[in-house]
């Protein structure tokens, strides 16, 4: 399972890549493995704003529907329309092609609340041991 070091992570298994005050968001390798074959992705519109931990989209596998939560408050700058037509990328390239949205972050201080790669890996180990 992959936990790239250039990402920050949430308890709900989203990853965040930070560049200045923009954040690219997707779901983690662990999340896609738990979901199984992803067949549908629903994304917000450019200009939508979300609070921290507010659901901004949905990802559906053959079996299950999951909400995707906004790791930090912000405004949607860009959405990955290609992912809508190729939802299977969530399984094949969760940290690359399968990014969901780019956000303009309201308060970059919020990044401090997120896990780094090592902390997230520990968190996943604990969660999957339960």
């Amino acid at each position, binding site marked *: 399972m992959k936990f790239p070091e250039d990402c920050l992570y949430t308890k709900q298994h989203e990853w965040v890549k930070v560049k200045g005050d923009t954040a690219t968001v997707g779901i983690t390798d662990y999340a896609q493995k738990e979901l*199984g*074959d992803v*067949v549908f992705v629903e994304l917000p519109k450019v200009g939508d704003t979300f609070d921290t931990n507010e659901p901004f989209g949905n990802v*559906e*596998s*053959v*079996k299950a*529907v999951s909400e995707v939560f906004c790791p930090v408050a912000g405004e949607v700058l860009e959405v990955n329309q290609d992912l809508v037509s190729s939802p299977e990328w969530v399984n094949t390239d969760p940290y690359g092609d399968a990014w969901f949205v780019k956000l303009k972050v309201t308060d970059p201080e919020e990044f401090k609340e997120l896990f780094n790669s090592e902390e997230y890996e520990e968190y996943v180990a604990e969660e999957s041991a339960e």
Partner: protein
Amino acid sequence: MNFISPLKKTKLNQVHKQLGAKMAEFAGWEMPIEYSGIIQEHLAVRNSAGLFDISHMGEITIRGPESLELLQDVTCNDVSRLKDGQVQYSALLFANGTFVDDILVHQLSSGYYFICVNASNTDKDFKWICEHNHFDAEVKDVSDQYTQLAIQGPHACKILQTIVNIDLTSVKYYWCQRGKVDGVESLISRTGYTGEDGFEIYFPPEFSAQIWTHLLERGAGEDLLPAGLGARNTLRLEAKMALYGHEISEEITPWEADLAWIVKLEKGDFIGRTTLVQQQQHGINKKLVGFEMEGKGIAREGHAVFIDGQPVGRVTSGGPAPYLRKNLGLAYVPITHALVGTSLEIQIRANLVRARIVETPFYKRKKSRRTVS
């Protein structure tokens, strides 16, 4: 103190885990949901073959001089039509005509029947049959004595043939025969829950790992994959086979469930017949239909169904159909609207998404495949 009863495990539990299966609870059992992925497993069954552990299913035997009379009383199909070695899809009904369970009746010989029932209903079915056993017949719950595997798909016959001592081409669809699988006395039945040709085999649990492993080895060159309950569910949905607790339940009758073909009123009295006759005379209010999503979205169990802006029912099963590459569902709608071509809307989260009633089964295998061996 812990009041949660531990999950039951099939004899193959460790084997599944070693294969990397994702395990989850189903009907009180810890079962494999998927191994390599539901889509891949689903396509393997349609194009080559899949192997399922379905040992959670229950088995009940009925033996004795009046076992036919008992079965004619507690089931709605006509058991007297069966010849030795023939299998029949049927149901146990309550007096009000609704489902106790849907079942498979195997006539092993005159006066000896082997019934396969749903895992979640095994105790209920056994009690129900015993309560109505006013006949010279012995009813036994033999679920613990069997492992049940299903090998399904166009290559199933060829793979299984390499490991059995009977000629499988002589076993027709919905017939069964006793024979040895990998040297082990088994019941081999040409039945399934996938819409494909295939077999369900029943044998003593101590041989589970041996037979499972040998079948996977024999099938390696035929693209046989281990398949979980996830694929089993998407396969049965494509084939529009009912799932207890979803399409059929204690609130649904066979007329409503589009299962009139398993009701034989002319066979004489049986439990539920009086109500079914009345319902037939008065007509039913709702009926099970299959629909295909036209708008973007996946219908799921429980989603509300709308016709002309009015809520009319709920989705009983829904999801993506990996082989047909469509999003499909089943739902009860008013009989007045249960026509192919009728437009529906399915409420998916905040949106109403367009769907249309279509012919079922959604998927039907080509007939030539049945005899491929």
